[in-house]
């Protein structure tokens, strides 16, 4: 049984034995390592000032992924490479191409957000060449800057490829892979510190027995939600079981009629499979949190936290996604629309966990998803809607309608669905049926939106869906319009 967290910091292996597993990587860097280049801006994964890059072995390559160190537990670094802004300069002190481009483009003013931007750009630099402006803006959505207005940073992102995208990290990649291989584990990592226990199993069977043995344990996946309990609520998480190292749960596969997503697959891992079949769901995921959040957060985590505003949930529900729940050696399958039983409560039994998510691949249904938020990128929806429509000619055979932000749980709009079933799919019937939504939901007023706005938008989105499915030529989406503006 392993009891040491081993990871690479820069190019040196670190071994931590007596450490609080829920210490955040940011705290570790600033207080233990005295690497103060990484900053705390919010301690909730929303501003990106704390962005660092994780190197993860992927065959013969290292996969570089930007993450928010403020809500990442240090124990989850096990088996990975951690790269911070201090690692980027060359041995001779010259700046990394990303850093140089930021200087040349006047990309920093107060400089406090800058290390985070540099690290996000560094990950981008290694992942792809010459990204589009749209892609740059997606990659930087999780980094807030209050000084520059972003234009010079976008310019730096374009200019950093002046000499391709090879750097000293590329030069030593195979050595790093060797190093990473040397610290991979074959068995469960167990850490005990100050009355706190942390398990990181590597096999599904061990995970299942651990969860069964510790029904009160917190299951840790990406930690983008759980991390906040530590940084904001100052809660003690006594027993933690980490799913991220269970290889059987990291898989994403799409066969003929369904997409199956393991509980430990991140949003980033799942993106392509989902976006290929459901572009609108892809668009929703593109706007889900930020790159940093999607690089650690998981679909299963978003489901298990059962938030009324989990932005992936209405789409999954409209698509009739099903969950494979496991307890010990047995599994059962439940529909997502039966899974949420109340505000932040689910149908999971003690000792049970989500093993994987199954999303049917519908080929003859029309699907659309919409997310309405105050800020377009990196915000939580005030209303999220998803529709899956099957037509017989121009008549509604059946329609699945699901909303987030309208009730204590994400929920189907059954009355509205019923009102539409068998009706002609046209403006008049949709207009009429949309009023059934007012009987389906009684949304609340809060900081994100008023009850009146939520109800109005819920109705309007259904109208928009009808418009888009019948009048393809009408421009209805500002994001598509914006693409035109890009030329």
């Amino acid at each position, binding site marked *: 049984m392993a009891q040491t967290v081993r990871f690479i910091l820069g190019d040196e292996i670190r071994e931590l034995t007596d450490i609080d597993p829920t210490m955040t990587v940011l705290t570790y860097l600033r207080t233990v390592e005295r690497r103060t280049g990484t900053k705390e801006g919010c301690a909730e994964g929303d501003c990106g000032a704390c962005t660092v890059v994780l190197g993860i072995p992927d065959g013969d390559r290292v996969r570089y992924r930007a993450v928010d160190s403020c809500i990442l537990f240090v124990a989850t670094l096990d088996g990975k490479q951690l790269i911070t802004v201090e690692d980027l300069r060359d041995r001779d002190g010259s700046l990394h191409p990303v850093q140089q481009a930021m200087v040349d483009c006047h990309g920093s003013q107060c400089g406090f957000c800058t290390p985070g931007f540099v690290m996000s750009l560094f990950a981008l630099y290694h992942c792809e060449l010459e990204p589009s402006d749209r892609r740059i803006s997606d990659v930087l959505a999780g980094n807030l800057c*209050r000084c520059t207005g972003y234009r010079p940073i976008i310019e730096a992102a374009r200019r950093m490829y002046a000499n391709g995208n090879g750097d000293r990290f590329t030069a030593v990649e195979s050595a790093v892979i060797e190093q990473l291989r040397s610290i991979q584990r074959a068995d469960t990592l167990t850490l005990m510190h100050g009355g706190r226990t942390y398990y990181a199993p590597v096999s599904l069977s061990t995970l299942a027995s651990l969860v069964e043995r510790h029904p009160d344990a917190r299951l840790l996946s990406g930690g983008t939600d759980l991390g906040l309990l530590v940084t904001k609520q100052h809660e003690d998480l006594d027993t933690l079981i980490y799913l991220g190292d269970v290889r059987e749960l990291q898989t994403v596969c799409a066969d003929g009629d369904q997409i199956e997503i393991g509980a430990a697959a991140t949003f980033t891992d799942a993106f392509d499979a989902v976006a290929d079949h459901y572009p609108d769901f892809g668009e929703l995921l593109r706007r889900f949190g930020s790159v940093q959040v999607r690089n650690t957060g998981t679909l299963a985590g978003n489901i298990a936290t059962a938030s009324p505003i989990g932005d992936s949930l209405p789409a999954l529900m409209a698509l009739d996604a099903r969950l494979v729940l496991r307890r010990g050696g047995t599994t059962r399958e439940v529909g997502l629309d039966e899974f949420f039983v109340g505000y932040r409560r689910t149908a999971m039994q003690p000792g049970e966990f989500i093993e994987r998510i199954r999303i049917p691949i519908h080929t003859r249904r029309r699907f659309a998803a919409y997310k309405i938020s105050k800020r377009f990128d990196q915000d939580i929806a005030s209303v999220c809607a998803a529709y899956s429509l099957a037509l017989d000619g121009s008549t509604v055979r059946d329609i699945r309608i699901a909303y987030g932000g309208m009730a204590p749980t994400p929920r189907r709009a059954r009355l509205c669905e019923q009102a539409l079933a068998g009706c002609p799919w046209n403006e008049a019937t949709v207009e009429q049926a949309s009023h059934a939504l007012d009987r389906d939901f009684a949304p609340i007023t809060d900081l994100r939106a008023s009850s009146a706005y939520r109800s109005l938008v819920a109705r309007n989105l259904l109208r928009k869906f009808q418009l888009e499915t019948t009048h393809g030529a009408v421009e209805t989406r*500002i994001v598509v319009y914006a693409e035109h503006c890009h030329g």
Partner: protein
Amino acid sequence: MDNRHNDRLTIEGGVRAAIPHDSARKHVSGEATYTDDIPVPDGTLYAAIGISTHAHARITSLDLVPVASAPGVVAVLTAADVPGHNDVGPILQDETIFADGVVEYAGQSIFAVAARTIEQARRAARRAIVEYERREPVLTIDAALAAERFVLPSRTIRRGNPQASLAAAPHRLRGTLEMGGQDHFYLEGQVALAIPQEDGDMMIYSSTQHPTDVQRQVGRVLGLRVNAVTVEVRRMGGGFGGKESQAALFASVAALLANVTGRPVSLCLDRDDDMIMTGKRHEFHITYDVGFDDDGLIRGIELVMASRCGMSADLSGPVNDRAMFHADNAYYLENVSITSHRLKTNTVSNTAFRGFGGPQGMMGIEWVIDEIARHLGKDPLEVRKRNLYGDTERNVTPYEMTIEDNILHQLIEDLERSSDYQARRAAIHEFNATSPVLKRGIALTPVKFGISFTATHLNQAGALLHVFTDGSVHLNHAGTEMGQGVMTNVAQIVAEELQLDIDRIKITATNTGKVPNTSASAASATTDMNGAAAADAARTIKRRLIDVAVERFRVEPSQVAFRRNEVVIGDRVMPFEELVSLAHAARVQLSATGFYRTPKIHYDAERLRGRPFYYFAYGAAVSEVVIDTLTGEYMFPRVDILHDAGNPINAAIALGQVEGGFIQGMGWLTTEELYWDEEGRLMTHAPSTYKIPACGDTPPDFRVTLLESGQNREDVVYRSKAVGEPPLMLAISTFHAIKDAVASVGDYRLSPRLSAPATPERVLLAVEELRARLAARLVQLQPIEVH
């Protein structure tokens, strides 16, 4: 870019060189040290503050035993433990460090705790048992107006006869515009490190725009003379006005805990506490009554501005004065009255924020002009032009300052042409006629912003310059670096004055022990004033060096010239450091102070009359928006800006201020919504809930130009112009572009009702309201059957 590098005799990084920010290389490599990055001495304690959960209440019992007994806790302090004055009000003494009996906003500091780790301190602070006797809170502008609760007396500026002009005007409109506040959201939260010194002195590292204020406040709190406290700041991770008066509370708490424990104390606010505890931009309601003619020319106007100041005066006096001084923006208001109410509410005390009341004042008049245009069926731009200040007549402001440097006529014309405003406006109308869901809108708005502190005495700055015998220079001045590039600008000025490459100039942390009695880095004038003070010091040194050369080499002063890193003396050339060494050997002082006070300004604070501003900064912007009339979402595909930064010291830095200021202003007017619950608790206190612009909100087509012919007509250092605040107000065009797009829903026959911030919700509700009004109007036009 600086094109003169080829010239062997041209210094690196002189005035007009668009060099990178002095700390750019340190920013990108994580080496720039912010207050929380300073290595702390052994034994340093970490602090947390316990805050009120009620907006208005009497504290009936405060049990801090659970706090004191929490793990790691070393000290707990309340109002009773303050040796000096329990107050941090920057102008009036009306704001406690620790609440004494009564709390007046949710988030008010009640006690502080120091512990061995920051986590222990924060956990301990949550263990206090506080019992409150709730009092009815007054939370809104309307409620405070009704209750006549003010932090300061109301003020009025009047000129001509607005009443009579209103009555006689061919057209008259009345209404109210509401606009929300704004959180600064500097990325680095409030932070201070206090280190006790011998004799009971205190060394403070503070993230502050106003080290002198922190110094005075800490002295008052500890009961020390000012000379016992030293405050230093190398840089802030953003300020925007939020660290002008607000830093004093946190530095004071750290100092109190350091004083009582005898150990260094670090106080670093968590983002949520920062947003809950610190003041913001003032929320305003502006009510207007305007009379105008068929061309849209304003004949008379009455403006009443009501602002939510929060629980204390803080800087609300000068903020509201500036709002009044910008109620005209760029327009001549012949018969006018401007009244300002400074309302006391049970919310956090609002404070300075980039623009300092100016943005709110301008929003009012820009809205009025837009209303006039829509009433008359004209292009708002036409009405704007119609009302602009004249060059030689119609050029006196309501506060009796003659505008001598107006360049807006030409600037607007240039922008109108370069942005292709007219053709785009026509194309937008065409698009809107056939697009049922998406609608586009466009607006051009100008900015005229007064430069100088309205309080005349604050318009002074100092600098300290040392030259060493190797020819290197140590530069210090009163300006503080918050990202605006003041350190770079001033270093470029000194490099230019001494004709030294900029790498010879060492920029050093702002420190109250080096340059004393300073003003805040605020009012956009930091480079203007500190640059001039540093130039003054450099010229003193230069004069002394010339004297040495004249005496030593028997030449005329006119035969001594400084050129790149060298001095030409008659027909000999020597390295700069050689002359410096000669001066040192001749026992000539190689250190000098410099001083500057802004000329020409005067101001009668009682009558609100005079010349409060040395000059004006100008600019204009055209914003184009597309809105979704089913959801209220929007984006800005293109923005064109033409801004006058004078002849900038560093055009790259000036451009950065224009772009960044615009986007920040756009945030204020669009997505940045502060939301309080009915008990007065701020619910938007972190980036998860408070949405400043993200990367994708920057217009994909963003054309920002500095006015090429820019020259400050006044003798400001190197004829540059202040550029920190003015560009923020260019974003008023975004709000009016949205309004224009909403107006298209009613075929431009009705004027939308919109308030700021124009969140998607407000936009959609404005669309719906307009549709409802239109429908009602159509119904009215139908013949009514009589039964």
